[in-house]
């Protein structure tokens, strides 16, 4: 029995009739055509499929599309406001926080959640905060460096914005 869902993805509304067993990750990739959300393990263990559900990082292979009905999703394609990159994206690029890049969208969105909760995480807090995301290539050190750099960038920009507002 199919169900109607209405899911806002990166600000745009998507309506579809879906099977109740359809996973959110498949909805994003196959129905909405957003393939930046990757599939690594299908069982909630690798984090490649991480997206933001109402701002909170979730593994979209462990959420049903029907559970996201009426809610708002941010995928990697929608993280940056405009053509530019989000500071976390910039930092991953500059700090070389990726090789094959398959884990990268999930890492970045998980880091986003962490930095929302803790704007200046310590090295250990970063490792714990995004510790549920796996990478087979990079050795993680540069991912940690990237999150640190992103935190600095975001804090600086926030201070600059605050000064501008004064």
């Amino acid at each position, binding site marked *: 029995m199919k169900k109607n869902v209405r899911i806002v993805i990166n600000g745009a509304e998507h309506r579809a009739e879906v*099977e109740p*067993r*359809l996973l959110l990750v*498949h909805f994003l*990739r*196959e129905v909405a*055509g*957003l*393939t*930046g*959300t*990757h*599939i*690594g*393990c*299908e*069982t909630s*263990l*690798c984090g*490649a499929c991480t997206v933001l559900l109402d701002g909170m990082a979730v593994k979209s292979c462990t959420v049903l599309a029907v559970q996201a009905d009426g809610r708002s999703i941010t*995928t*990697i*394609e929608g*993280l*940056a406001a405009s053509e530019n*990159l989000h500071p976390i*994206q*910039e930092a*991953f*690029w*500059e700090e*070389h926080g*990726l*090789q*094959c*890049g*398959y*884990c*990268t*969208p999930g890492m*970045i969105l998980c880091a986003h959640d962490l930095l929302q909760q803790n704007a200046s995480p310590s090295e250990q807090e*970063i*490792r*714990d905060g*995004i*510790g*549920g*995301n*796996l*990478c*087979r*290539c*990079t*050795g*993680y*050190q*540069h*991912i*940690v460096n990237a999150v640190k750099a992103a935190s600095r960038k975001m804090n600086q920009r926030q201070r600059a914005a605050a000064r501008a507002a004064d």
Partner: protein
Amino acid sequence: MAEYKWPAPAERTLIGKRISRVDGAVKVSGHAKYSYDYNPKGLLFGKVLRCPHAHARVTSIDTSAAEKMAGIKAVQIVQKPGTEVLWQGDDIVAVAAVDEPTAEDAIRAIQVKYEVLPHNVSDAEPPAGAGEGPAGPMTEDDLENALGNQVPDAQVISDLQKRGVTFQVTDDMTKELKGYGVSDAVINALKAAAYHPEAASQPRSPYQKMAAQTQGDPDKGFASAEVTSEGVYGAPVITHCCLETHGSAAEWPSSDHLLVHCSTQGVSGLPDQYAQALKIPAGNVRAHQDHIGGGFGSKFSPDRWGIATAQLSKSAGGKPVKYMLERDSELMTAGARPSAYARVKVAAKGDGTLVAWQSDSWGTGGPAGAGSPPLPYVFEIPNQRKQHTAVRTNQGPARAWRAPNHPQAAVITMCALDDLAHKLNMDPVEFFAKNLDMTGPRAPIYKEELPLAAELMGWKQKWHPRGDKSEGPIKRGVGLSMHTWGGRGHASNCLLSIHPDGSVDIKMGSQDLGTGTRTAILIVAADSLGIPMNAITLNIGDTMYPPDGGSGGSTTIGGVSSSTRRAALMALDQLFAKVAPALKAQPADLEARDGTVRVKSEPSRSLSWKQACAKLGAMPLSVTGKNPGPGNLINSGVGGVGMADVSVDTETGIVKVNKMVAVQDCGLVINLKTAESQCYGALIMGISYALYEEKVLDPVTGRMLNPNMEFYRLAGLRDIPELMVHMMTDPLNENRGVIGLGEPPVISPGAAISNAVANAIGVRVPFLPLTPDRVLAALEQQQKAGA
């Protein structure tokens, strides 16, 4: 004519610097397309029914119910009734459906009956006398395994001559092997090998003992030694566990033209493999890949499931069908690193000089055995006797895993040497240093690297004789290992065009595994042409471009950097000839720098790049730079040292790595940023296989017990210690030219960590991974021995 060499250090604008990867923006923004992401309209989804038994014969297949289901567009039998299946998870039937759940429903509706046959998944030490007698003629699997595991040519040739083969050698087959870079000598031996068809159906012993190899006089060597150490060491079967699983999408734009998007380490090598299986000309196969989510040696073939995907598409009227492996199928079937274990006896004089080595090694590469680890590793000990026994099991097929056979050889050798150093009462760094002259041509490099690594580790402050005597349950220790690798650049073709409007493009059939191949090509081209990297358009990853070697064995950087350098220099030769009259100079007096073409001795006499290119007239100039080719741009053979500092909780058996050091040479570095990144990645991959990874099979059912990422554990963010990477970039190394780097730094971590654990707790944990149960078992044995 240009001289084919690298620019002098002072003239390099990009080569050797830390350059951010050019594909960073598409990858961090989710716009990079992997094969998994290929998503055209009307895409059908494949699924595969897999054999649940480790060894069985298919007796019947009934697909009628599945075929009738709504939404099913094609059903393809992959292995017919009568076929013997040799590992759990092998492909039996494939289906294509309008969506994945429907395909899954269809799989459940297929009835397959099997005759279950006895299996063996154990690679435990062969019983005495096992595998004596003739090994029997080589099967196709035997050959594939030997070639895939870098068994030396001489050994393959002698096996072919002595044993013959069970299969008919066809022209297609030899052509295919040639395409993979198999040497003519091996191909000739294969053609000449005696054909024994009758042997194909004969039961074979699971043990295949290879000929013993002797050098010097081992008996005399051991007799003359003052200290001898004996032990058993090894590493189990592990998997590749790439984050993007294997798989492809296939479609038929016309009835005899195939288009595939395949997750592969070798784009140019795919058409021939599809063509043979599907009986169409290789020229009718187009393969494309933008990005790949990891390979590590496991992705060179379309595989059974890839061919099936193409067949499904054909049956479905040519519509695109995509099938990517599920994580469990991936871990069960898509590649296993062969295990290797050995009983070792090694001896030295009282001053630490190595005199003799003896090893009886064994290991499994699945159904066809495997190559043997190069023992003793790195050190050419003067007197040696060694013998290897390949164990045939139903473990699943072996595939090359980053630095095939070397990590295993490092564990066996470097742990044995560390135990010997302990018996000699020597600091392992001094002991290794004492014997460096036995490392052959790489000795001068090791002599620089070893003290440097020791310094970066703080070895002097940290090392203590075996067994941390400090209070409390947490014991700390350090360990080291050394390694070597070839890494000569593969065949490569770089088609470079300069257009009259000043634009430049490059086309190559190569692929970027994430190592930064795109970036490296652009660095070389831009540095050579004196224009910015973003002024060059680079196209790779398609069989429409000139063929390039597969990315395996650390061969890509040497291949693509040298062909690109040659192409750029050839292009400049032609460009200078056109520009020289305008500058009233000789072509040989010109150079391309800072976006201009100018007179070397008088840089103010110049044309902008655009003005210079306008002199080409109406036609672009196009050249193809090749590797191999003129000039000494590349080389082979690196060293490398790895060190580990660990803490072991002797109450829980948990090992924690505190610090890792990698000191690595790779000749001339093209991009320091991506080169270092290879080492960082290798260190964590090393920690992963040292502490966690093992393909665990149930001896009773023959099935894999951990086919998921929960129990097939990879090292995560919480496992990273302090990592120190040092690349050797001195003139001694740079003058050798470019050498590959992907494999070497992953070789030493396992042995270095094992040695650090032994240093910490005072006893050897013989086998990787160093799991708590193994650590506790070793401690218990030590206690018993002490009591």
